[in-house]
């Protein structure tokens, strides 16, 4: 053979081989492991949509019970397992995870992320200005009221506009009226004894989040406003307005069974309440402290790619599909109606969501839209957040059970400062 033919043949073979190997790589099935605290049914729609778009990537979901997420991530990411590719991350835990090296920087995606989220949401994805997680879900709160119990007490239904917002003091008075007319309880929070739910009380009265200082690693829960907020919380139970001693998980049934007049909870309650037999309810914005500012809690799960994933590129495809792609992001909430962070997905979501609830749907849509936009406040970003939350939840539990306010707060502040000093 002449050298030209040889060269041509070699080139042709090289071209053929590379296309074969490229096709081989493309045809090779990659299986990604996604972990979350949700049931399989919740992530099924988005997995199906993703697999349809990328036929050579399969996604396996592992459902980890919520209270064991910490242990799982500690063991598997902390142990540098490649057994996790994409994971749901609880937003407030991000700083702690970053300080342990469990997350890698996503700054190169800032251009794609920024236009799709609110500034508050962007903060929740970042630590010290560097983005580490992708925006998945957020949350907000509203106040549900039992129409029958209010009717019996002659209380007019609260309006659903921002200007109609009642103060806590007004709610306490109305609750007592409702109880005098036969309601078992006047008022309750959905997640009693949980920092997420109660942070707004303290932010509203101007007490701050409870953490201050460098890196938010100093506890500050004994200032006057904290005491004021804590006394208010404690008085709800001492006065019999809110239920004492009922475990957190068993509170929503109290409202479903028509035993509570006012219930502050998340929009995920709408489905269950609508299905509750004999329950007629409406929605209004959550109360605020007189003289303070209206505040709602926010934040939920974010998404991250494990730094030890064996398939980082494919994992990133999945993560971006679930968060930055409006259709994909919407699919993540199709089976679990909680608002997506992605603003474009939110628009799709909110109309679909409102249509599901006859009567209250439009009010809920209105409330959720302005609360997420105007009053949302994130949990404090701190490497010690988990320890802080653990202690605060216990404090709230003790307050609910009637412990003295000031000594309890002082004890907890001491304990927190001691514990937080062990965390860098």
């Amino acid at each position, binding site marked *: 053979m002449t050298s030209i033919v040889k060269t041509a043949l070699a080139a042709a073979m090289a071209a053929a081989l590379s296309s074969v190997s490229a096709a081989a790589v493309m045809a090779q099935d990659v299986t990604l492991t996604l*972990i979350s*605290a*949700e*049931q*399989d*049914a919740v992530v099924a729609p988005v997995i199906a949509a993703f697999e349809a778009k990328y036929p050579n990537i399969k996604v*396996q*979901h*592992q*459902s*980890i*019970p*919520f*209270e*064991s997420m910490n*242990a*799982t991530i*500690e*063991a*598997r990411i902390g*142990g540098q*397992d490649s*057994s996790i590719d994409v994971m749901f991350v609880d937003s407030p835990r991000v700083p702690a995870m970053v300080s342990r090296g469990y997350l890698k920087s996503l700054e190169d995606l800032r251009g794609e992320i920024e236009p799709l989220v609110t500034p508050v949401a962007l903060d929740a994805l970042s630590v010290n200005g560097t983005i580490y997680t992708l925006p998945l879900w957020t949350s907000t709160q509203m106040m549900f009221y039992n129409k029958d119990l209010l009717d019996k007490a002659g209380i007019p239904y609260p309006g659903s506009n921002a200007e109609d917002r009642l103060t806590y003091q007004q709610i306490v008075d109305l609750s007592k009226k409702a109880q005098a007319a036969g309601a078992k309880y006047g008022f309750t929070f959905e997640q009693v004894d949980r920092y997420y739910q109660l942070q707004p009380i303290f932010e509203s009265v101007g007490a701050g989040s409870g953490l201050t200082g460098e890196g938010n690693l100093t506890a500050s829960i004994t200032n006057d406003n904290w005491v004021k907020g804590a006394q208010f919380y404690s008085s709800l139970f001492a006065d019999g307005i809110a239920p004492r001693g009922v475990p957190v*998980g*068993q509170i*929503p*049934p*109290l409202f*479903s*069974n028509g035993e509570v007049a006012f219930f502050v909870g*998340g929009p*995920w*309650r709408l489905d*269950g309440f609508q299905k*509750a*037999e004999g329950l007629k309810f409406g929605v209004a914005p959550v109360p605020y402290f007189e003289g303070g500012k209206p505040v709602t809690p926010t934040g*939920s799960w974010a998404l991250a790619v494990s730094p030890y994933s064996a398939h980082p590129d494919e994992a990133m495809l999945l993560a971006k599909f679930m968060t930055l792609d409006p259709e994909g992001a919407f699919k993540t909430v199709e089976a*679990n109606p*909680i608002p997506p962070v992605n603003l474009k997905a939110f628009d799709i979501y909110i109309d679909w969501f409102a249509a599901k609830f006859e009567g209250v749907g439009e009010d809920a849509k209105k409330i959720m839209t302005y609360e997420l936009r105007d009053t949302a406040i994130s949990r404090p970003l701190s490497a010690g957040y988990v320890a802080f939350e653990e202690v605060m939840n216990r404090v709230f539990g003790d307050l609910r059970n009637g412990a003295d306010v000031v000594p309890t707060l002082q004890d907890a502040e001491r304990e927190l400062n001691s514990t937080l000093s062990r965390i860098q």
Partner: protein
Amino acid sequence: MTTARIKPARVLHIATIAAAGIVFFLPLWWIFISAMRPEDDIFRYLNPIGWETFLPTRWTFDHFVALFQSTFGRSIFNSLFVAVATVAGGLIVCTLAAFALAVIEFPGRNIVFTLMIVSFLIPFDAIALPLYYVMRGAELQNTYLGLILPGVGNGLAVFLLRQFFLGLPKELREAAMVDGMGWFQVFWRIYLPLTGPAMISAGLIMFIFQWQAYLWPLLIAPATEYKVAAVSIAQFNSAYGIAFGPIMAGAMCISLIPMLILVFFQPYFTNSVASTGSKE
């Protein structure tokens, strides 16, 4: 010959036993009926007590449907398989060990026994993380072995069996030795046949260990194919609310299996060694 008389003392005795049994069973009964009533009714009738508290007014099987549409069916199989395998392997390992600790005299016996005792003093949940790294090094994540192995060397079971072996008279062994039997034959032919009830008790310990296990299976085997039942029903505990109905349904299923096992084995727990003639 007196005909059977209904002595008041006997009636009182039976009544007391029945009362104790009912008191213990009441909470379980509540779980069972909660599994079969609509979600909203589960907490509706707590107070004041009425017949509705213990008997559903409305019935539904929806919770079971929701349960088996999830991964629960597979997880029950996993739990059962792991528990049975643990008992099978564990009984072999622990009975052999207990025999040596009770019957064979050798220097260092007390040290080994102390090792066994210490092993069940170690809080399993506290060493879950270091153990996880050990198992991971052996590539046992998401395998049945990873679930079974930690349950096989059960110090408590060894202790129980050792106590039992100690209670058997030395004459048994001495007679066999005179006959020139080796240790294994002494074990196999003489001691083992007497060990029925103790082995059942030891088996129960190991079964319960696996049936109750939660943190360990979660860490070592979270994949759907290997998930155990206790972990599987925890998925109904989401951050957005607890679906009590399916959890109760799952609890009912999870309880029925040991219930059946216990009902079956109960008479054998207390079969006296006396019936085999070694204690007059």
